[in-house]
């Protein structure tokens, strides 16, 4: 009896710690959402716990940020969605084809290429920032969408993810299709792709989440307002003295929504993307 009681108290204690710590963790984000729903005068008037109460809640800040003519927030959102969407679509095609070729179609030199790709993974992006700018500039892409998309289509880590997965697909499947007269492309399209949906989802989501929060590169190549991305856009809003705090909070919340939606609907693949890199590493 005593032991069971002790165990129960233990569990209750753990639950309590989790909930309290959890609330502490999420409180900055809660404050952001509550502030985005408040009239300007209340945001910094309400202090302490009161600042978490959505008093006089309304969507005025959201309407202002979305539909004021002088603020192009919707345009920024679209620019980000478009460029990141293109990276994801083109990237999954290019990287999966490359991984398939390296693992299953072993051609002369594929072993060497594999080593080079894995080595490239250690290069921090910041160290190629300036020469990459020079290259992209020489193509005339500054302030054009290709500058936000093309350099990020091929990605060593994404190829690596596909390779790990494709290795696990038994060669017998491939051979069976081959006997039926399929060529390597048909094998890829009809056998490998349908059997690899999880890795496609993982790679696509990882790529979306990574590039959605990109800041430094768009800051440099997308200075023109017409292709400004949302992360750079909110930073401009933040430094603009004319804007109200409630509207900034609304913009921050809206910027986060796409990733939240991905987390809600594709949680499994999202988390897999994080851990697959970790556990095998």
């Amino acid at each position, binding site marked *: 009896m005593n032991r069971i009681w002790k165990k129960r108290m233990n569990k209750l204690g753990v*639950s309590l710690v989790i909930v309290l710590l959890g609330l502490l963790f999420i409180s*900055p984000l809660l404050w952001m959402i509550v502030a985005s729903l408040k009239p300007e005068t209340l945001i910094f008037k309400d202090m302490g716990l009161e600042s978490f109460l959505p008093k006089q809640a309304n969507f005025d800040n959201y309407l202002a940020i979305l539909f004021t003519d002088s603020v192009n927030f919707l345009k920024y959102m679209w620019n980000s969605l478009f460029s990141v969407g293109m990276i994801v679509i083109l990237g999954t095609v*290019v990287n999966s084809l490359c991984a398939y070729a390296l693992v299953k179609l072993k051609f002369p030199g594929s072993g060497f290429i594999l080593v080079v790709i894995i080595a490239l993974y250690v290069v921090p992006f910041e160290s190629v920032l300036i020469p990459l700018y020079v290259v992209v500039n020489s193509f005339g892409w500054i302030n054009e969408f290709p500058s936000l998309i093309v350099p990020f289509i091929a990605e060593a880590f994404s190829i690596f993810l596909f390779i790990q997965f494709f290795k696990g697909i038994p060669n017998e499947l491939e051979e069976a299709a081959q006997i039926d007269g399929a060529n*390597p492309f048909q094998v890829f399209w009809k056998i490998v792709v349908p059997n690899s949906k999880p890795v496609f989802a993982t790679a696509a989501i990882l790529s979306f989440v990574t590039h959605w929060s990109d800041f*430094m590169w768009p800051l440099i190549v997308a200075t023109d307002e017409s292709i400004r991305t949302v992360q750079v856009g909110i930073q401009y809003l933040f430094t603009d003295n004319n804007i109200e705090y409630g509207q900034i909070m609304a913009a*921050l919340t809206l910027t*986060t929504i796409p990733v939240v939606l991905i987390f809600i609907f594709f949680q499994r693949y999202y988390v897999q993307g994080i*851990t697959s*890199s970790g556990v095998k590493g």
Partner: protein
Amino acid sequence: MEWLLNRIQGGKAVRLSLTYGQQKKWLGFLFSVPALVLLFTFLILPVGLAFVYSFMEYNMLNPQGKTFTGLSNYARLFQDAIFFTALKNTLYFSVLVVPLQCAVALGLAILVNKKVKTAVIGRVFFFSPVVTSMVVVAILWTFLYNVDSGLINSALNFFGIPSQPFLLSEGQAMNSIIFMSVWQGAGFQMMIFLAGLKDVPETLYEAADIDGANAWQKFWNVTLPSLKNVTGFVLMITTIQAFRLFIQPYVMTNGGPSDSTKTLVFILYENGFQFRDVGYSSAIAVVFFLVVLSVSLILKKVLNQ
């Protein structure tokens, strides 16, 4: 596809004569070409160019006037006080943030790995800052750290502690950034630790129970040794991530006050895109790359022992 195979074999009716093995060779090459061309143009070539530019006097405003000047950029770098400040700040941030973030992440992972009903809520709450981008988080926390009206100071006042300057003070700015970064990033490493914890066999804990081990002994003798590989990996990615610090100082402090939050990547950006000095900025990039590379190699060696 048939057209292609025909072309490759010089227009002969080759479809039948190409074996699957031959098709594999050609198509393998073909499938990997787009990725390889892109990787070469936008990664391998820039790596090479970074080295080349670092030996040049090259300003973006005068691209025609670029000339090789040998090691002069490096000589300038090692006499530049700002460079050493940035290096010191980057190291300070990394040395504090890496153990803190990993320890918090491990603690949270152990907590939400317990078989209690609130564990799922905990996972979502602890992970939620990761879902938020660093720019969003940095803007938000600039408000939270506000001296007069920030939430954190109002909480401190509630406990009778006077308001702190946080981002406005030379002594507190970097620590404030560290605190925020741990909060933002720990959920990411928590997920990796959690996956690792799931792989620890339950029988090990049962055996420890029979031996009468307490919670601390179980952590020290069962959990930690079982997580050795995972911990090594987490330390590695967290360290590399830490060295890349840029967004927080850029958004929150603009490198100040008095350069106290300038980092290597910050001065790389500043020299490259504000002063347009490609040559000098490339030298910083090369040094940055070498620092990150040697730190990860040292870490790898230490972890393997």
